[in-house]
């Protein structure tokens, strides 16, 4: 169903916008309640499950989803494959909005969101979370800088856009380094939980595995976002570019699979593959859906060259990789349950996210979609010609 985002003279907004606004409103109400009475009443988080739906979806998945930006940016600006230029702005926009969504969700999840800046003044250099925090904050700045030309062009300040463009390369490199750090650090978050994360996942090379998969996710995201926005904003689809991106995916996934299974072999943990009950099922699901099937899928030219099939492949890849993020941050973690008598402050050994909890994430996500739509509508995010850069 094609919907139009044009604003009619009589100020009628299309249904989809109302829905998104509604979801955002619900999320806002839940957040206000959370600020008033605490995280407990509106979620199922507990002393056994300090992190749950928000962290798995908004942080782990959200950051992974924003990986398209640095992948495309490095392809275009470091490897100077200029043909992919048209994909940069939307990818950077997706990244920018994505990372803002991460920060907003942290403002709800943190016990003291008003102290979020403490990460810049009280620093514990052994903390992975600190590194992620600083990196995300810095990268947001970089993304803002990378996206600013689009804004400047939109408000007809082309000279400023060109000015930024002259010095874009260092920022791109900084952006890639920051992205590498925090994409891999999301995996490093789990390094301090060797007794809790199942051996099928825990490994000292978690950060490496996360980085490699972030590359694949980034490519998949670019495919997804380009295809979807071409349908909804009625612009041309650079299928030939996407097809080329798709060609790179199997290579990355092969390396990823080697890192996963090679690690299991080296650590002597292969026996867990078929003896871990539900953990094994989750592992194989994530491997098959997130790596094996996409690896095969994107190797088949016929599928790559069909926009619908390309999209499907990307969705399968993303689903599998998101499952991986959920496994690592939630499903495969053993939550402490000393068999307690009382008081049962560790009683919530089951964790089922509540509706308000999920509503917050859905609302933030809706805001992201809306923001993307607005940007796409009012800013020159999509131009079909490669930038003529002057050196």
């Amino acid at each position: 169903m094609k919907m139009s985002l044009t604003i009619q003279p009589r100020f009628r907004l299309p249904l989809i916008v109302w829905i998104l606004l509604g979801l955002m409103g619900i999320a806002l109400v839940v957040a206000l309640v959370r600020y008033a009475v605490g995280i407990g009443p509106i979620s199922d988080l507990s002393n056994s499950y300090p992190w749950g739906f928000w962290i798995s979806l908004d942080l782990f998945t959200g950051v992974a989803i924003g990986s398209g930006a640095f992948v495309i940016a490095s392809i275009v600006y470091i490897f100077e494959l200029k043909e992919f230029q048209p994909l940069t702005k939307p990818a950077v926009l997706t990244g920018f909005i994505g990372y803002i969504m991460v920060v907003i969700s942290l403002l709800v999840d943190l016990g003291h969101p008003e102290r979020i800046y403490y990460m810049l003044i009280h620093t514990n250099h052994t903390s992975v979370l600190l590194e992620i925090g600083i990196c995300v904050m810095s990268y947001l700045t970089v993304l803002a800088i990378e996206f600013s030309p689009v804004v400047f062009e939109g408000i007809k300040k082309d000279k400023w856009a060109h000015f930024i463009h002259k010095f874009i390369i260092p920022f791109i490199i900084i952006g890639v380094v920051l992205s590498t750090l925090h994409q891999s650090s999301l995996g490093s978050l789990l390094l301090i939980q060797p007794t809790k994360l199942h051996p099928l996942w825990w490994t000292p090379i978690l950060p490496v595995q996360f980085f490699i998969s972030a590359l694949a996710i980034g490519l998949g995201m670019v495919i997804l976002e380009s295809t979807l926005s071409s349908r909804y904003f009625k612009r041309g689809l650079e299928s030939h570019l996407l097809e080329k991106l798709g060609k790179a995916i199997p290579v990355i996934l092969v390396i990823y699979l080697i890192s996963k299974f090679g690690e299991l072999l080296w650590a002597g943990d292969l026996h867990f593959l078929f003896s871990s009950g539900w953990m094994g099922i989750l592992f194989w699901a994530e491997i098959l859906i997130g790596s094996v099937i996409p690896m095969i899928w994107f190797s088949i030219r016929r599928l790559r060259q069909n926009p619908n099939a390309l999209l499907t492949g990307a969705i399968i890849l993303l689903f599998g990789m998101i499952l991986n993020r959920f496994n690592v941050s939630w499903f495969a973690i053993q939550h402490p349950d000393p068999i307690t008598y009382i008081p049962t402050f560790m009683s919530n050994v089951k964790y089922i996210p509540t509706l308000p909890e999920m509503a917050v994430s859905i609302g933030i996500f809706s805001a992201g979609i809306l923001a993307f739509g607005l940007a796409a509508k009012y800013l020159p995010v999509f131009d079909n010609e490669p930038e003529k850069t002057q050196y």
Partner: protein
Amino acid sequence: MSEIINHAFLFDATRCIDCRACMVACSVENNIPMNKTRIWVAGIGIKGEFPKLESASMVYHCMHCAEPDCLSACPVGAYTKRSDGPVLYDPDKCIGCRYCMNACPFGVPHFDYDKGLIEGAFIDKCTMCPQRIDVGLAPACVATCPTDALEFGERADLIAKAHARIQAHPERYIDHVYGEIENGGTSYLILSHVPFTELGLPEIGSIPVKEVSETVMGYTIPFALGWSAVLSAVAAGVHLYNQKNEKRSSAEEKLEDSK
């Protein structure tokens, strides 16, 4: 003032009768609200089939690790380890991220899920009663334990005492003092007649759990610098290569044109 160099607890599960005097004493000593607790009871409950039954319970504290994971994980450094034992938490720095709760292999830090922004939601955990140990008293839980299941003192002495106890009654105890080496050593040492996992304690080796995490974090800055250098080199290299190619192709074009 306490003359002890390294304060530690010794808990003997064979003596614990699950009376919970320790918990009441802790609540009063540390002014804990009614809906929270700093120490709790863990154990196997009652195991077996009538009439062959077995039971074990343990008071679960902060372990006051020598190499605390909470301290390593906290982004804002809200945890400190006093040289004489206690691991302390500073609510003034805490941002409520709850990473420490993930990091602690023993599930010790508890969070105020029921407090909003105004009241302030913080972590709470056993502090080893510094207000008591600094004046030479034992922590509240230890002082009141009717069966001396909880004892307190110099860590080295308690370890020796624990091993002596195992020697004296080898049929009674698992031949191991939990906490002697676990996680690089903890200040809560445990003797038990049932496997330690049945008391809810994780199986951990002597290498501190935070070791890998800290090692990887140690590489962050060198890696960042190196990666920047590599990327810059690649970017420069690719750029120069492309420039050369462009010059060559424009030169070739000129040549073509001129023909």
